[in-house]
């Protein structure tokens, strides 16, 4: 029986073929609106297969002083889109002589994600503040659908925390409450998702601009997840370390 898939068979370096595993930001992205702004939180892991190519990646890319984009999917695709979209947004800002709304920016991202949906593996969260609507959060999953959300999670880690987020959002959240929820959500996702990990990076965007925070596992403030204590690993009659 053949043990290799055809595409794997072609990936034998000795024969001049190399594996083509996507380098991906298999990610946890969390974002939540609060009274006066928006908070986004991410992990810092970039991987190729199960290999971690970077453990301290910054997945929060500033677009303007009051707007960031959080990327997930293929690292190459999303970096390219962010660069091009940023360029477009800067050009429009100069032409129109006023800052673009976050909604406008999200539509620019949408054009790329939708028009090239068959060749891209990219999904982003656009978060920011503008004078018209205040703090806003737009989710753009793969395919180019756009939707504004009060709170959302994206990337591979999102499946682990969607329920937690749903249970936490309420109207008139304060900044500190919002930050605590987002940070905890990243912590929970990182705990379970092998594709997410490393440090937690938070960005707060409000009328005053963007401020970044870093929470390291080796420093206080890193979210704590304590699952229930375990039972024995092997059948009970087998000698093993008690739990």
């Amino acid at each position, binding site marked *: 029986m053949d043990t290799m898939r055809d595409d794997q068979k072609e990936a034998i370096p000795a024969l001049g073929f190399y594996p083509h595993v996507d380098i991906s930001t298999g990610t946890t992205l969390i974002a939540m609106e609060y009274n006066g702004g928006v908070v986004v939180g991410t992990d810092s892991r970039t991987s190729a297969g199960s290999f971690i190519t*970077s453990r*301290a990646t910054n997945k929060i890319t500033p677009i303007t002083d009051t707007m960031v984009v959080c990327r997930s999917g293929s690292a190459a695709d999303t970096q390219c889109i962010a660069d091009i979209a940023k360029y477009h947004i800067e050009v429009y800002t100069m032409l129109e002589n006023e800052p673009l709304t976050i909604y406008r920016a999200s539509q620019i991202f949408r054009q790329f994600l939708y028009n090239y949906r068959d060749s891209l593996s990219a999904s982003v969260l656009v978060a920011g503040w503008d004078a018209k609507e205040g703090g806003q959060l737009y989710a753009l999953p793969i395919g180019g659908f756009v939707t504004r959300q009060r709170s959302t999670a994206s990337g591979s880690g999102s499946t682990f925390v969607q329920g937690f987020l749903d249970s936490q959002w309420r109207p008139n959240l304060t900044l500190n409450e919002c930050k605590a929820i987002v940070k905890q959500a990243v912590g929970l996702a990182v705990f379970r*998702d092998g594709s997410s990990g490393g440090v937690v990076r938070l960005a707060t965007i409000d009328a005053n601009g963007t401020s970044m925070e870093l929470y390291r596992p080796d420093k206080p403030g890193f979210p704590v997840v304590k699952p229930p204590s375990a039972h024995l690993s092997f059948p009970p009659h087998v000698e093993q370390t008690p*739990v």
Partner: protein
Amino acid sequence: MMHHDELQRTLNPTCTGTSVIAMQYKTGVVVMTDRVVSYGKTARYKNVSRQYKVNDNVLVAFGGDHADFQWLQNVIERQALFWKRFDQEIGPKALHGYLTSLLYARRCKMNPLWNTLIVAGIEEEEKNNKETSTPFIGVITQKGCAYQVKHVATGIGAMLLNQAVEDSWRKKGGDITRAEAEAVLKKALELTIYHDCTADNDFEIGSVDSEDGVNLGKEETIIGDWSIAETNCQYE
């Protein structure tokens, strides 16, 4: 047809463990495994041991499929019981040979056990004999390829750690204390948590010593150094 083959392959390993790292020291062997069961890339179950004490002289650690190992654990237990019927305790070399045949036979049947096994131990006759005491580390891959080593890292650790482990080993000229060996193992685990998606911070170090036999490890945690995240990590 192709489709059918792919299905078999992806279905087989479901709940898995990653690297095993083991090293000889003067009078024994230390073995390190983390304590997470991965389901694909989900950290599905925490606090699950990957080290099985066969008897006072033999410890088996594994990477790969947990279901396959649960079956193997039972096979080993019954084999040990079978030996007891003749008033014997199975030793590391005998168990290593037995498991090699087993894994090789299974892969020849095109139904391999999805495990890399580390058999660590000490032969009863060589216990407490400082001159001839030779701690044993045997490796068996899922293909039934088997060998003995003084130190080893399996799984993603094989690509990542073998050189680092070997360097540390050579620095001491192979004359290494237990504490030094444990320190090397912990440094190796730190590297796996930096570079292996399915590695976990929680781990255990088991040992087989010529003086006090098998000692199962207790759960420990490693955090690592994340000062690198303070630097500019933007892609631009």
